[in-house]
């Protein structure tokens, strides 16, 4: 009896000790950082037409507000890992595949226009928010539409696979305003629906509206009107269960904010001419975004809705 109980307690201790050692090992290492160090390359997820946050400037080159922030972050990580060169592979992603690609490790860091919300936090992790998006309405300047209540019975365009679709549905239910929804397959397509007259309004994040208007044939024909329909934090996406990498990314973000680069970046991408057509987006810095820089956090969109 005594010998067997010694044996049991001995085995139990060994199990506990070995588990502690394994857990210790897991906490200390980071899958992403190990992969970057081993291959000398990192895959950045980018969008193709989310002007000016993350878009292609032609010839498989990608640029944008978030892309430039990510480059600065990766520079810091390169220095931290002690690598002499770090090759960045740009992987275009869509609203459909961005989360699965981050989950399965194809993309190490996604720098597009992904909203941080609780549903997505089940699958991926978000760095601290650097941009707070406001969902607005774009209409033709001569349409006389100024608010969402005037859209009753009109055609409203939005992009498939975005959070704006559900937002419009909730709005219809909440206010009883009934409009006809048309779906574009991507932002450029939805803007084309507005341009060609098949839709009377385009509901989407303000930066995407401003970017598409800036790049259209006659930007003066359009304007962004109406109340803010929703406030959403846009953040950089990284793998879940990799706290070391997340801490490094957030540390790099804190450094960028601390040395005052954020207002300059905003100016460069939102208020000055941007490639490829040297158009100006013309979106002013909102109080919500300034607040996000002052109080860095990764809280989800639901927390922003509670006022």
């Amino acid at each position: 009896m005594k010998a067997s109980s010694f044996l049991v307690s001995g085995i139990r201790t060994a199990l506990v000790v070995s588990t502690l050692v394994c857990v210790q090992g897991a906490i200390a290492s980071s899958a992403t950082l190990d992969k970057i160090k081993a291959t000398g390359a990192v895959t950045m997820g980018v969008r193709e037409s989310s002007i000016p946050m993350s878009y292609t400037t032609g010839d498989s080159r990608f640029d944008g507000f978030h892309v430039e922030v990510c480059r600065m972050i990766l520079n810091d990580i390169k220095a931290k890992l002690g690598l002499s060169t770090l090759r960045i592979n740009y992987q275009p992603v869509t609203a459909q595949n961005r989360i699965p690609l981050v989950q399965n490790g194809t993309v190490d860091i996604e720098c597009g226009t992904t909203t941080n919300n609780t549903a997505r936090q089940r699958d991926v992790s978000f760095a601290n928010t650097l941009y707070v998006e406001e969902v607005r309405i774009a209409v033709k300047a001569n349409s006389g539409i100024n608010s969402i209540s005037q859209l009753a019975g009109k055609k409203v365009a939005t992009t498939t696979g975005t959070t704006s679709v559900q937002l419009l549905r909730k709005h219809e239910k909440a206010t009883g305003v009934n409009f006809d929804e048309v779906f574009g397959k991507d932002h450029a397509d939805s803007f084309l629906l507005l341009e060609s007259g098949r839709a009377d309004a385009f509901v989407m994040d303000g930066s995407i509206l401003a970017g598409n208007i800036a790049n259209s044939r006659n930007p003066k024909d359009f304007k962004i009107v109406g109340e803010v329909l929703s406030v959403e934090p846009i953040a950089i996406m990284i793998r879940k269960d990799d706290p070391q990498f997340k801490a490094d990314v957030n540390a790099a973000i804190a450094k960028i904010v601390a040395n005052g680069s954020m207002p300059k970046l905003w100016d460069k991408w939102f208020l000055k001419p941007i490639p490829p057509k040297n158009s100006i987006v013309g979106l002013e810095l909102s109080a919500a975004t300034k607040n996000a820089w002052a109080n860095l956090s990764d809280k989800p969109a639901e927390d922003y809705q509670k006022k």
Partner: protein
Amino acid sequence: MNMDFGVFCKSTLDGEPVQHCISSIFGIAQNADPSYLDWLMQAWFWTIAVACLSLMIALVIGAVMGTLRTLPNSSLSSRLLVWGATAWVELFRNIPILVQVFVWYHVIPSFILPLKELPSYLLVSIALGFFTSARIAEQVRAGIQSLPSGQMAAATALGMNRIQSYRYVILPMALRIVIPPLTSESMNVVKNSSVAFAVSVPELTLFAMQAQEETSRGIEIYLAVTLLYALSAFSVNRLLTWIERRTRIPGFVGTSTDPSLAH
């Protein structure tokens, strides 16, 4: 990988489970807010509607064009008809289906303005119907030209004019011969109806993309959509197989084992 099929019983507005999940799709009860299952059923209806409309357009126009391509070069009018049908087939065969859908939705309505008023599902059915009609025309032409030349000669000898010989002798046999490739083409129409998502028809593919984004449960959503597409295509297959069996003329099938029916 954990799957949660309960996502279909969640409301599309706030993600809470709805009261009448299964009974609402049979019309017995009504949910206050639609669930993902209700939305899935509506999307399935749209897929079937676009597929049926396209198939009807394709079968009628395809049969006509295929028949016209088999006319002999005897007179100017028949040469013109052959040339017109050939132009139709070559035009719609050489352009990818998605490009054709965009042309019908964005380009042609800017020239023919009344088309802008048409709902998008009609435009996409026209596009898909014309695209498939070119393929059906070629299959019907193959069926007609596989018949021995004695058939047309015998019909003429019986005193039938061109239209009568096609109507009573040639086409009944030719169409029976091409039911197998027509079955494939009909199933293709069901599958190709997924291009309607690009012009905002709220069908299964658009449902899959949007619901996956909202619920983050891509595996369950795509499994359900795949199942419904397979079910729809397979039903079309079974229906046409039944038609094939019912309209088969005994003894005219090449692999028949009854020697007394050989001809």
